[in-house]
């Protein structure tokens, strides 16, 4: 019997282990060592912290870094603000028979790849795009406005791309909430404002946190959307990494940036969990 358990355990464990080890841990270790090496004057690789020093000395690098972090937090917050009313509406307000249908409607855009969806936005927003065309037709503007390649369109695109990952945990968190909690709070004299902040938000906190973690990480590491909707002005940190690896062919510098991004996202998530008094395994379960 014991042998059976061991065998079954191995069958399930080995693929997970191999996946984690070969595809995540091993390359990360390699990148880590790479990030600690620089080419000296004669072209040999030597140990050094120079790659990290470079980051702190070059203003553009850490400004981009900071900007990416702050914008990712903003995107996470906006995604929550946009999706919460939708999740609340689907779970608490409409009749349960439309719930499945509406949820599917929400998921449907995500059957299309991110690239295609972002191009969709570009078709709408670009100078010769749909919105500009109709604004001109109705005489609201004389010449097309460039709506792409600015922070607003980039943030909007990022929120749009992230919505699904926020709304699914929110729906499941709110779904589990008995309506009688809201009624009981109302009965005890609470205003709508108090009910929202003292009952609904604390109850949905695990869902909010898990959605926020996923959205934050995906946004921070997103390359496609900032690049396409923000253009060259996007100054997203993933672009710096890409530039180092592909454009400058400086893998060592790129690896160092990659590690800084990893540390940043871990740090912000850790702070977020501390502030919201949640714990990671509970939030993600």
């Amino acid at each position, binding site marked *: 019997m014991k042998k059976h358990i061991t065998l079954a355990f191995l069958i399930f464990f080995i693929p997970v282990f191999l996946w984690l080890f070969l595809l995540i841990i091993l390359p990360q270790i390699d990148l880590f060592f790479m990030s600690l090496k620089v080419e000296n004057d004669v072209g040999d690789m030597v140990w050094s912290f120079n790659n990290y020093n470079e980051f702190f000395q070059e203003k553009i690098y850490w400004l981009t870094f900071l900007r990416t972090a702050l914008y990712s937090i903003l995107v996470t917050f906006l995604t929550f603000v946009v999706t919460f009313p939708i999740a609340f509406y689907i779970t608490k307000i409409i009749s349960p028979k439309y719930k499945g249908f509406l949820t599917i409607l929400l998921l449907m855009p995500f059957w299309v790849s991110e690239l295609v969806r972002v191009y969709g936005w570009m078709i709408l927003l670009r100078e010769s795009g749909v919105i500009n065309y109709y604004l001109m037709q109705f005489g609201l503007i004389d010449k097309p406005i460039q709506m792409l390649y600015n922070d607003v369109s980039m943030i909007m695109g990022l929120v749009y791309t992230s919505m699904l990952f926020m709304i699914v945990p929110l729906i499941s968190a709110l779904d589990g909430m008995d309506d*009688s909690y809201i*009624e*009981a709070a*109302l*009965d*005890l*004299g609470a*205003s709508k404002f108090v009910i929202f902040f003292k*009952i609904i938000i604390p109850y949905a906190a695990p869902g909010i946190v898990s959605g926020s973690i996923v959205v934050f990480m995906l946004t921070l590491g997103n390359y496609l959307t900032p690049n396409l909707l923000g253009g060259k002005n996007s100054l997203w940190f993933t672009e710096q990494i890409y530039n180092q690896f592909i454009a400058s062919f400086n893998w060592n510098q790129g690896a160092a940036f990659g590690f800084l991004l990893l540390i940043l996202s871990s740090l912000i998530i850790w702070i977020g969990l501390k502030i919201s008094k949640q714990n990671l395994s509970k939030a993600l379960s």
Partner: protein
Amino acid sequence: MQNVLDIRNLKKKFEDHQAVNGVNFQVEEGKFFSILGPSGCGKTTLLRMIAGFLEPSSGNILINNKEMVGISPNKRPVNLVFQNLALFPMMNVQENVAFGLKRQNVDKKEIEKRVKSMLERVHLEDYLNHNVQELSGGQKQRVAIARSLVLSPSILLLDEPLGALDLKLREEMKIELKKLQNEIGTTFIYITHDQSEALVMSDKVAVMNKGQLEQIDTPQNLYANPKTSFVAGFVGETNKFQAFKENEESVITKEGIKFLSIFIDKDIKKDCTLFVRPEAIALFPKDNEKDMNYFDLKVKTILFDGSNTKILATFLENNHEIMVSLPQNREFAHIQKNDVVKAGVHIEDCKCYKA
């Protein structure tokens, strides 16, 4: 005594059915008032209208002589103990009980004092910092009641709060609730489908059926003098027979047994329903008394239930079943299955209602 609650011609219509259909009643201050009815009779709808979660289609709800229709639940001087209790899972016992007081901007020290004294009342003073999920069913119950009572509402509404408890605990909570209500003196309005809860605890019981109140009376009166056939059949155990009126003081059941009986509904033409309580039937009665019905019964089985033991018997002439209470004082211990026993019931205990 002043009426704390006055319900006038209250109606509630949902899309396709009339849940509450013209209800009128008053509740005196400090009373334990129950609304008893089968599931789906509209009692929860009625309660939710009093609490303010539903707007009536028509009629008035007056609390302390103030019209409540149109006032939102958080502004009404009533509090509701929910069927599932609805204790906030993210708060501990102290925070749950303090929730309502905080909303009234009561001073922090004062909140602490009142929460503590309320929890002492329900014997939970040692559980102040416990998470509500750690409590037992009975303790949760008491937290829910404390959470509402700490606000000193004019009326405490209770929506079948004992439904989820097991039998033993339910019996204990019944007595505890009654005691608590006596001590505090708040008006309780208690909704239940369990007649024993209603009869044990209440000063007055309103029996509800199909959206209307059938009778409002003391538990004793409700049991002894039911006014309608529904009340007679619903409150307490009873034997029910379909019968025909023979003359002004007797009926013949469908099976052909004659009962001397009294008619509660005066306008019975022919068809009627006869109710006889199991404990009204005497075994081996004195012979030849006036106004007594006599019959021979064959014992089919003895349904032992301690002090509530009954025998299920059939009439000797036909196979129609009748339930008879069997006092547990050894006098009848000799009765066995298939024995034939003589039984009698007084005319006053055979009540006829419209079919």
